[in-house]
């Protein structure tokens, strides 16, 4: 095995050790923690890009942590779903850039290093979760990113954030327990924790009942993390009341871990001889369809901008699960691309909204009337990202939704195509409403008139993400081709 594979362990080690160092290193100089966090996330991004280059050259590869061959040691495995770590590291980097001016305004100065430590540990946990090939390791890194995510929500001011964090913590802890229980069941039947090894040995298990329950517990556990309807109840509170960069991180990146968890579950169980995944996938389709419509309708009636965006995440998670549930090559690759594209779009949305709310001090949509004139760039970025999240061609949101809709038609489910289109139209309705409010209505609130454009560090992150949420739509074909080999194990079942 050549040297580059060390990167698989380094994408976990670098951000976590970086995060653990921050409170000790920057106790005296809290604001300097920003530069250190930025540097370690840039290093992580560079390592993950080198991993992708190797993936493109050689195909999927593994790394035996500690040099122990699987199944005795923990095997890390890099495939085309794992490649999402590069996008997630990039988003974390941009969120950190945005945080430079934002966080000192909302977090007491002595706690700024804690914020950066939590963001870095969260990144390390996400990376570990995505690159591991071991069930217990998956659980451990799920806890790493979950615990840091609960705390990041609680860092916002006000009692609402604390309550939202507790709600998130309780539901998250139950879902973690379900996942741990399922891992116990699988281990008791196979004697191994390695995912590939367990997948091969589950067939030989004496009884199918524990296997079926393990599948169910994993699915429900990851459904909570992914906030799929009806287990999304924690999301609107947590994502609306967290500080803006944290909302961006949670909505863009952390919920996707739940989705990847479901993908890993389907992959592990897809070889099973007598266990049928079809009923589960049908369930995912219907929950996804309800999520699309429920999220869109709930977003329509919100008056709080961030809460509206949180419900938009419920909608988009619904789209992804429709695609995964259909499981045909077209739909599943659409879902995989939408995981990435939605991450970019949602980060753009939450950061742009965060800038508007931060600069004006107002968070109700009607109060923001006319702010487009005062903060043209941030408002423009929000507008572009809103069109992208609605799936207007040729933006990034279009690619995945179109593929998912096509997949529905191909497999003879025209009703689902209807859901995809109606969902998109509903999202477009509130998107246009916000754009209209920002640009074409006279200011109502005095603070709008005195607001100034966001500082350059915030603008840089917002504009880059907004431009990407437009441009990634043009790169739809290469992205679909990139994920195509990875979704094959899923399509076998559908």
């Amino acid at each position, binding site marked *: 095995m050549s040297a580059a594979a*060390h990167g698989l*362990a*380094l994408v*976990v*080690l670098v951000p*976590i*050790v970086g995060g*653990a*160092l921050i*409170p*000790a290193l920057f*106790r*005296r100089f809290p604001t300097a923690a920003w530069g250190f966090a930025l540097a370690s996330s840039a290093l992580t991004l560079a390592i993950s890009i080198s991993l992708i280059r190797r993936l493109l050259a050689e195909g999927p590869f593994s790394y035996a*942590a*500690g*040099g*122990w061959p699987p*199944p*005795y*040691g*923990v095997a*890390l495995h890099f495939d085309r779903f794992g490649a999402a770590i590069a996008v997630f590291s990039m988003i974390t980097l941009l969120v950190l850039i945005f945080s430079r001016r934002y966080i000192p305004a909302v977090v*007491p100065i002595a*706690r700024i290093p*804690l914020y950066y*430590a*939590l963001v870095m*540990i969260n990144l*390390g*946990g996400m990376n570990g979760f995505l690159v591991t090939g071991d069930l*217990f*390791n998956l659980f*451990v*890194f799920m*806890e*790493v990113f979950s*615990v*840091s995510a*609960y*705390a990041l929500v*609680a*860092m916002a*001011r006000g009692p609402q954030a604390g309550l939202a*964090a507790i709600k998130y913590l309780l539901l998250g802890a139950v879902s973690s327990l379900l996942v741990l*229980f399922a891992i116990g*069941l699988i281990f*008791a*039947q196979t*004697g*191994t*924790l390695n995912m590939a090894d367990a997948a091969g*040995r589950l067939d030989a*298990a*004496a*009884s199918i*009942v*524990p296997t*079926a*329950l*393990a599948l169910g517990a994993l699915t429900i556990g990851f459904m909570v993390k992914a906030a799929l309807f009806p287990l999304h109840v924690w999301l609107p509170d947590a994502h609306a009341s967290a500080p803006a960069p944290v909302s961006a991180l949670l909505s863009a990146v952390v919920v996707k871990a739940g989705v990847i968890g479901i993908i890993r579950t389907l992959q592990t169980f897809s070889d099973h001889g007598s266990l049928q995944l079809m009923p589960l996938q049908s369930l995912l389709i219907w929950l996804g369809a309800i999520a699309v419509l429920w999220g869109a309708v709930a977003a329509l009636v919100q008056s709080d901008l961030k809460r509206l965006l949180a419900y938009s995440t419920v909608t988009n998670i619904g789209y992804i699960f429709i695609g995964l549930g259909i499981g045909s090559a077209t739909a599943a690759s659409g879902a995989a691309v939408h995981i990435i594209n939605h991450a970019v779009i949602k980060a753009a949305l939450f950061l742009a909204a965060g800038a508007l709310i931060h600069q004006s001090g107002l968070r109700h949509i009607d109060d923001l009337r006319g702010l487009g004139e005062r903060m043209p760039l941030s408002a423009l970025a929000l507008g572009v990202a809103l069109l992208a999240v609605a799936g207007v061609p040729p933006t990034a949101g279009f690619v995945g939704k179109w593929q998912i809709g096509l997949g529905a038609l191909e497999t003879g489910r025209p009703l689902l195509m209807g859901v995809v289109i109606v969902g998109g139209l509903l999202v477009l309705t509130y998107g246009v409403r916000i754009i209209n409010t920002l640009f074409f209505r006279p200011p109502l609130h005095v603070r709008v008139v005195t607001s100034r454009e966001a500082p350059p560090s915030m603008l840089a992150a917002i504009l880059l993400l907004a431009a990407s949420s437009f441009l990634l739509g043009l790169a739809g074909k290469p992205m679909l081709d990139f994920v195509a080999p990875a979704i094959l194990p899923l399509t076998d079942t559908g």
Partner: protein
Amino acid sequence: MRKFLALVLIAALGAVLIAAVVNLPEPGTTDSPVHTHVSAGYIKGGHEAGGADNLVTAVLLNYRAIDTFGEVTVIFTALIAVLAATSLAGPTERSGTQNIDLKTTRVPVSPVVSFVVRLMAPFIATFALFVMLKGHELPGGGFQGGVVLGAMLILLALFSGRTDKTDDEELPPGLRNWIRAAGPLVFGALGLTGLVFSGWLFSLPDHPFWREMVMIGLELGIGIGGAAVLVGLFRALREG
């Protein structure tokens, strides 16, 4: 009605869980997969290859070191989470008023209890250190030793009579932050030294002496870091 519904739900969930558990391979039978597959490999090779008489320690620190790295990170993150989330009103303003309440409402510490705690403290600390240092040979290890040490420090903090002061730092704050991060940091160091000496991240040295030294270092990092986290959690509860 709600209580009844909750009861029905719990009963249904319990029935499903029990149905799954009774269908698992019978515990204690030698031919169940738990005993024949990976564990059998650990038992066969764990002593020499794993480098520890205590096979649990061999699995924790050697075979699955990256898992343990994640676990100590969770423990450290829990402390950071509590410090980040405790009342944003700020500890200094509030603890002033709280301490006045404490002084007036506090039950005086019994001299007997206080004396016994002080008497026992050095022995508890020695035992904690022993559990950490001998974790690779005997039952025990860093996690257990850390909890014993942390509990001893919390006991001392309760009885040492210094709780009235707002700045009763046991350690300089700069050093304290390093010690709290000891768990993740020693594993970070292990990751890198493993790469340098044996070519794999998170691997222990091949030479038995150095392997033992690295294991003791890891146990101490886990234990002392864990104890510092426990004390930190205790202090955060008092201040917040």
